[in-house]
């Protein structure tokens, strides 16, 4: 599903962010990418959604070499990868429903489709009773669930979550991780970027550990080793 071959990315004027990384993530996997801040986790996430391009190496997603992606093709890629970030990136003046519908509107979906899909994804994340609330009226965990719902509207094959629990308390963290596991059960590949050892240790799934831009360990049912 996702293959990285000898990928290197350097930001001008700074150290090497990603150094010679090789990875292979299979369809349906739940992979955690861990490491301390500044070890290149977020860079890796940005490379996968083609927000950054590698200096060297190849990134292949579903057989598609995205290192040579054209600007006009990026939206197509983004619709196949749902993205969830630590800062929720919800529009404060739109309701929960409208925030999710927005993602469909701007990709040209017809109204009928929007009306069908939004309630579905809200049900998946368990917010079907709060579709008329504004982001300000929601808790942190609920906001993050709205973001996850929004990332699901295009039925992505991959869900990339970069520190999705960074701003949340322990109970909400549990809820979000459970939700990711539920989505994973439907067959979606999950890539979870985190530096929270508890999450990783409880998950007992594959763990890739990054240090100074390099993969220093890749375990099938790993623990947080740093």
């Amino acid at each position: 599903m996702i293959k990285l071959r000898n990928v290197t990315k350097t930001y001008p004027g700074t150290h090497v962010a990603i150094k010679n990384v090789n990875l292979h993530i299979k369809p349906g996997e739940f992979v955690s990418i861990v490491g301390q801040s500044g070890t290149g986790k977020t860079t890796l996430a940005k490379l996968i959604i083609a927000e950054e391009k590698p200096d060297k190496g190849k990134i292949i997603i579903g057989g598609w070499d995205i290192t040579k992606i054209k600007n006009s093709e990026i939206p197509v890629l983004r619709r196949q990868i749902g993205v969830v970030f630590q800062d929720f990136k919800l529009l404060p003046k739109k309701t929960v429903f409208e925030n999710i519908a927005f993602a469909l509107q701007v990709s040209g979906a017809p109204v009928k489709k929007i009306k069908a899909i939004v309630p579905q994804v809200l049900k998946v994340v368990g917010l079907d009773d709060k579709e008329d609330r504004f982001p300000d009226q929601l808790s942190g965990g609920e906001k993050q669930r709205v973001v996850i719902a929004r990332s699901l509207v295009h039925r992505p094959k991959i869900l990339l979550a970069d520190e999705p629990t960074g701003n949340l308390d322990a109970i909400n963290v549990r809820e979000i991780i459970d939700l990711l596991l539920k989505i994973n059960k439907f067959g979606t590949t999950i890539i979870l970027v985190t530096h929270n050892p508890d999450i990783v240790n409880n998950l007992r799934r594959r763990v890739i550990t990054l240090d100074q831009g390099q993969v220093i360990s890749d375990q099938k049912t790993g623990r947080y080793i740093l």
Partner: protein
Amino acid sequence: MFFTTLLRVLNFGFQNFKRNFWLSLVTVFILILTLFSISLVFTLNVVADNAIKSVKDQVDIDIFFDPTVPEDKVIAVQAYLESISEVKSTKYVSKEEALQKFTEAHKDDPQIKESLDELEENPLPSALIVKAQRLEDYSSIVINLDNSEYSHLISSRNFEDNQVIIDRLTRITDRIYQFGIGVSAIFILIAILVVFNTLRMNMYTQREELSIMRLVGAQNLFIRMPFIIESVLYGILASVITILILFPLLSAVSPYIDSLFEGYDFNMFAYFTANFWVMLGLQILISIVISVISSMIAISRYLRV
């Protein structure tokens, strides 16, 4: 699908306009100033063209003959002149006609009437009034005539004065025109910068929304088109307002301009009314070109995907 997309993009464009309302208003105002200065140059050009044209229409050569030259000789000269291809028309004014016109023109002046009565013979020369095809042809007609066998019959001719007037008029209008174009160019530049800046501000206020759009895989169309629509909106609004101000203004100024052209067939307001749609179309075109150029620059600089 196409229709929903179109509606949504249009809707986003209108939202952009409303969101920074005061900024939009200033942008439209600057565009109006620009269009106004261009219209002024255009109006000036129309007036100047008509002024020159009416002066040119009046230009002719009056060829005066010695009073002793008999009429048949004058007719022969007329025939000769008409055989020259540069000559458009000739008109023979006999001694009697000249006298009649002269007394008519000075009928309120008893002194002239008296002195005329004292003379036994008609003192006025017969004349030929020659019009050329083009203004440039006059000098060659004069040269032609001077070199012909008839040159000794001619006592005098008036021509040079007209050329001087036309030259002076052309110089003045050219100068005004150049100045107007310079001012318009400066306004166009300012307008491009202002529209550019407005769009940049709008992109800044919407950076969150735009980043979400990119994240969720919005088509580039949805990201870029609203800004183009916003700028086209500025253009259309500015042209319509400009026309709404310009026409009453022209109709108010028109009588004064027209009075300068007394005796000529020129009515400025009628000219602009007849060309209303062309003017509106041109204004819309100019303002849209200005704003779309600016939005393209803003988009390529600040909306990289």
